[in-house]
């Protein structure tokens, strides 16, 4: 199809604008990566824009050698795995149970779920309840309170209701109970939906810093994001240098003097962001699918 001059011009304007938008997304990460791979004292002089000028992995050695960060990483990984499995499981079985349209009291139960999406007791009563349940300063505060997601439940329920009734009915005639139907029909047919919602849940766990900052005071229980939040306002690098396991790296004191707070910060933030940057291109289509499944209005 032939484009008129006006259309060509507008195509160019649009492409340039969207190109700039993409640059604005990608560039900050390249900048942070460059700073984190550059000798700190050198980066502080300015002029490092795209790639490191004096390349070093020393910032990463210091960051990865820190026992607090190592520990925080383990907490993040554990809560992401356990939290995602628990969250998907509890939400899925509830969605399956509620997908039976003939279930007595179904609308009342759905109403009780909907209310929680519109109104909440607020942060302080929630905190008091965590305190009463002894969840403050416990690893489980990351898992249990978020294990049921009303939003995901509605998405899953819509999806399950889209599975042909005939499949379920024929299994029922064969004498399968709902547990078996869930296991052998619903779960296999829901894989794309489960993948998408599982990814959302995992990202939520990976990125949550709030629970670690306010519901936990024990430093051995904080996740990476909470460590980052503490480091964000740090005034010197003692936070990272204290309790460092990598004494060999620390011992090279001459290099240590070249480490700046900014170079350490950038290395730490890249350590937390790289896993997402790495898996994102492969999983992107599932994310989009997840949003679209959720948007089917009923």
């Amino acid at each position: 199809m032939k484009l008129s001059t006006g259309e060509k011009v507008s195509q160019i304007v649009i492409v340039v604008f969207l190109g700039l938008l993409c640059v604005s997304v990608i560039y900050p990460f390249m900048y942070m990566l460059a700073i984190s791979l550059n000798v700190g004292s050198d980066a502080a002089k300015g002029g490092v824009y795209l790639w490191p000028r004096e390349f070093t992995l020393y910032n990463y050695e210091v960051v990865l050698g820190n026992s607090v960060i190592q520990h925080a990483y383990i907490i993040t990984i554990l809560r992401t795995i356990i939290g995602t499995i628990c969250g998907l499981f509890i939400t899925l079985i509830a969605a399956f149970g509620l997908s039976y349209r003939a279930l007595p009291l179904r609308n009342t139960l759905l109403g009780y779920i909907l209310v929680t999406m519109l109104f909440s007791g607020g942060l302080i009563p929630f905190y008091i309840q965590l305190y009463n349940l002894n969840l403050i300063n416990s690893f489980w505060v990351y898992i249990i309170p978020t294990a049921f997601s009303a939003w995901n439940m509605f998405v899953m329920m819509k999806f399950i209701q889209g599975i042909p009734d005939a499949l379920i009915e024929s299994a029922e005639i064969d004498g399968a109970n709902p547990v078996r139907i869930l296991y052998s029909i619903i779960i296999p047919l829901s894989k794309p939906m489960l993948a998408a919602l599982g990814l959302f849940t995992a990202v939520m766990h990976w990125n949550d810093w709030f629970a670690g900052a306010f519901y936990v005071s024990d430093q051995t229980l904080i996740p990476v994001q909470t460590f980052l939040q503490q480091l964000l306002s740090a005034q010197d690098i003692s936070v990272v240098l204290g309790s460092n396991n990598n004494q060999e790296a620390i011992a090279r004191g001459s290099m240590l003097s070249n480490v700046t707070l900014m170079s350490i910060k950038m290395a730490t933030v890249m350590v937390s962001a790289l896993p997402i940057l790495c898996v994102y291109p492969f999983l992107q289509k599932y994310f989009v699918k997840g949003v679209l499944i959720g948007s089917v209005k009923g």
Partner: protein
Amino acid sequence: MLASLRKYRWQYMMILPAFVLLFLFNYVPMTGIQVAFKDFHIGLTVWNSPWVGFENFAFLKDEQFWIVARNTIYIAALKFVFGFPAPILLALLINEVRNSVFKRFVQSVSYLPHFFSWIVIAYILQSLLTLDGGLVNQLITNLGGDPVFFLGSTEWFRPMIVVSGMWKEVGWNTILYLAAITTIDPQLYEAAKVEGAGKLSQIRHITIPGLMPTITIILILSMPSLIAVGMDQIYPLMNPANQPVADVLDTYILRSGLQQGYFGPATAVGLISSLISLILVVTTNKISNKMNGEGLW
């Protein structure tokens, strides 16, 4: 009744864990709202602490509270005015791209920031804007200007929040609009072309009306988070220098409740904030029911 309960026992058993969690973490905290009218301390329970009437609402006479309320409304309004139309415009632009490879690339890249926490966003802002060696200030000084302390400035705080918020979510929020655009009947565009309608008038008379149901739903769904502007985004970026404009209801609740231990007053502020959210959702839904004949319920 009993027979049908028996018939559906498996289903009820599967629903049970979810309702236990809802009870513990949603409904019990709702009963905790009474703390707003009580003198609660750690050690007492929500139920046995003494009633104090509206004593905890004394903050309503406190000037500080009104500054915080004004900040909240200001930031919420700015974020809404700029943040709500942005993904619609971006979706329209992306939809006009002819080259499908570039189109997919733009989509993939623009979704990316959604997957980073606000903490990471705060680091990006810090690295770009900081006084010592931040990229933007390097550029400013190279161009002969004076460096600006963006991160501790009362003037730059709101633009920083609005722009970084848009940057993070605009791409992601186009997904639904782009999907809705594909469902618009192509014959409508053909007919418009035959009638000699230009691109802009096609967008105005076909695409945007076609998007209206999606816009309405997203508008209603965005209401609860409208007033809850603080926790994630603002708290990490707030410091003593920008606090006069940065302090919002959420950060005020965090500080007075969790950090200073004034549970009663903080719950009272939280109650007001929850009620405003609820009113916003219910009214938007009502308006949309009247205007478009459809809402969420």
